[in-house]
């Protein structure tokens, strides 16, 4: 089976449990951590590439622990026409996917770095960031 990308979101209490360890030990899954982020409220977001025979059981285990599991089918895009390059998103974006290019002061978006946290969707005052499913 080819590896699949999934997004895991967990609450503050869950982010302290050794979930990945059990995925490997009990379900024999091959885990590749693509992106990981814990926000200031200590809630976690993890993007994994997972493969193995017991893939579905592994996901069931995650859900049973209270982890929200979503396939990574979402993609963040920027509406270039709406974006004013103000920069309001740049100090918020946790992965550096949105950044200010200096000295020309143009905001650039590097989709490869984006961890789909969707923070920019809410904080962009001009609503130039969009999610595509």
């Amino acid at each position, binding site marked *: 089976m080819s590896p699949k990308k999934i997004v895991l979101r967990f609450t503050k209490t869950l982010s302290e449990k050794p979930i990945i360890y059990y995925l490997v030990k009990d379900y024999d899954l091959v885990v590749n951590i693509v992106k990981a982020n814990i926000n200031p409220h200590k809630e976690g977001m993890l993007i994994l590439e997972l493969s193995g025979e017991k893939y579905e059981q592994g996901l069931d285990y995650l859900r049973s622990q209270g982890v929200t599991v979503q396939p990574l089918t979402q993609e963040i895009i920027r509406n270039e026409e709406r974006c004013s390059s103000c920069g309001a998103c740049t100090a918020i974006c946790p992965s550096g996917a949105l950044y200010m290019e200096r000295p020309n002061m143009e905001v650039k978006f590097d989709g490869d770095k984006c961890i789909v946290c969707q923070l920019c969707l*809410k904080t962009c005052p001009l609503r130039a960031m969009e999610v595509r499913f």
Partner: protein
Amino acid sequence: MSIERTYAEINSKIKSGKVVVVTAEELVTMVKDKGITAAAKEVDVVTTGTFGPMCSSGVFLNFGHSAPRMKIQKAWLNKVPAYGGIAAADVFLGATEMPEDDPLNSSYPGEFRYGGGHVIEDLVARKPIKYKAIAYGTDCYPRKEIETEITLDDINEAILMNPRNAYQNYNCAVNLSSRTIYTYMGLLKPNLGNAHYSTAGQLSPLLKDPDFRTIGVGTRIFLGGGIGYVVWNGTQHFPDRLYDKNGKYLGPSGGTLSVLGDLKQMNPQWLRGTSFLGYGATLTVGIGVPIPVLNEEIIRYAAVPDEELYAPIMDYSDAYPNRKPCDLGFVSYAELKSGKITVNGKEIPTASMSSYKKAREVAGILKQWIQKGDFLLSQPAQLLPNADDGIKAKVLKG
């Protein structure tokens, strides 16, 4: 010999196609290379620009009379209420107004996805707008309700009238508390997680004419992609000069403009509905002001670079909301634009709420208009009060 120019001389140069116009940004470089005196001899007009959220914005709309006639008491455009307490067929729609069924901040932090500023953007983009109004009915205006669809072209007048725009200078906002806060300066992360500012610095109109020597009632400007006018000082016009602890001059602050123009000739590219998470909706406005180089002193002020213009650093978790003094010092626009500053010994990332890139475009468009002879400078009927007039902000007791 020092240079002296009149508005009439500059305008005749514009008409003959011989005018020399530079943007405030180009002037900064020019003065670094050639010095003030040479620049003053060469340049007739300096253009400035800014593109940022300006809450005190709105539009007066006059609808054609319906049959039967109706005296609008309450009106809604795309569900956003407009103020009907003026003449029968007129309303005022404010940029920060929200639909009555919006959850506002009760689903904290509220998203404020569509408000008055968005209606203004949709109007100027010629999108159809759902219009609803109610009235109590009179002998001369018997109709009591109407529900229809309008576009900007279906109504008589649409006057963009912004009582307070183009703040001369603004705070650099930080958050000293341990929780995330949502403000009109954006999302501020806890414990000095980020710093947000909101002017175009060396391109910003009122930073370049700090003492209002050229800007006044009747100054013709770039407004929302069209031509507009300064009609008065803005509300909360408290011009002041900033000094550090050692008495060093750090630039002006406190001035504001009241501006007006015909919405029908504007462009949605320069009037954008804007949403601030946890704060509200507003309008982002593009404004460009030409500064006539009447003498050397005017160009000296217009040439001040980002390194010599400062913003006060303000804590938005406690000091700002509670009107307490804040002693975090000042930071130059050059530092702010570098992407990081140091506050209380901590290095923090900076970001702007207003767009420097778009400010540059505004100043560039205004420059082209003047060069092509499409835009003459107007001599103000009256200059605006400056820092020497000592206007002070009042505090509301209660």
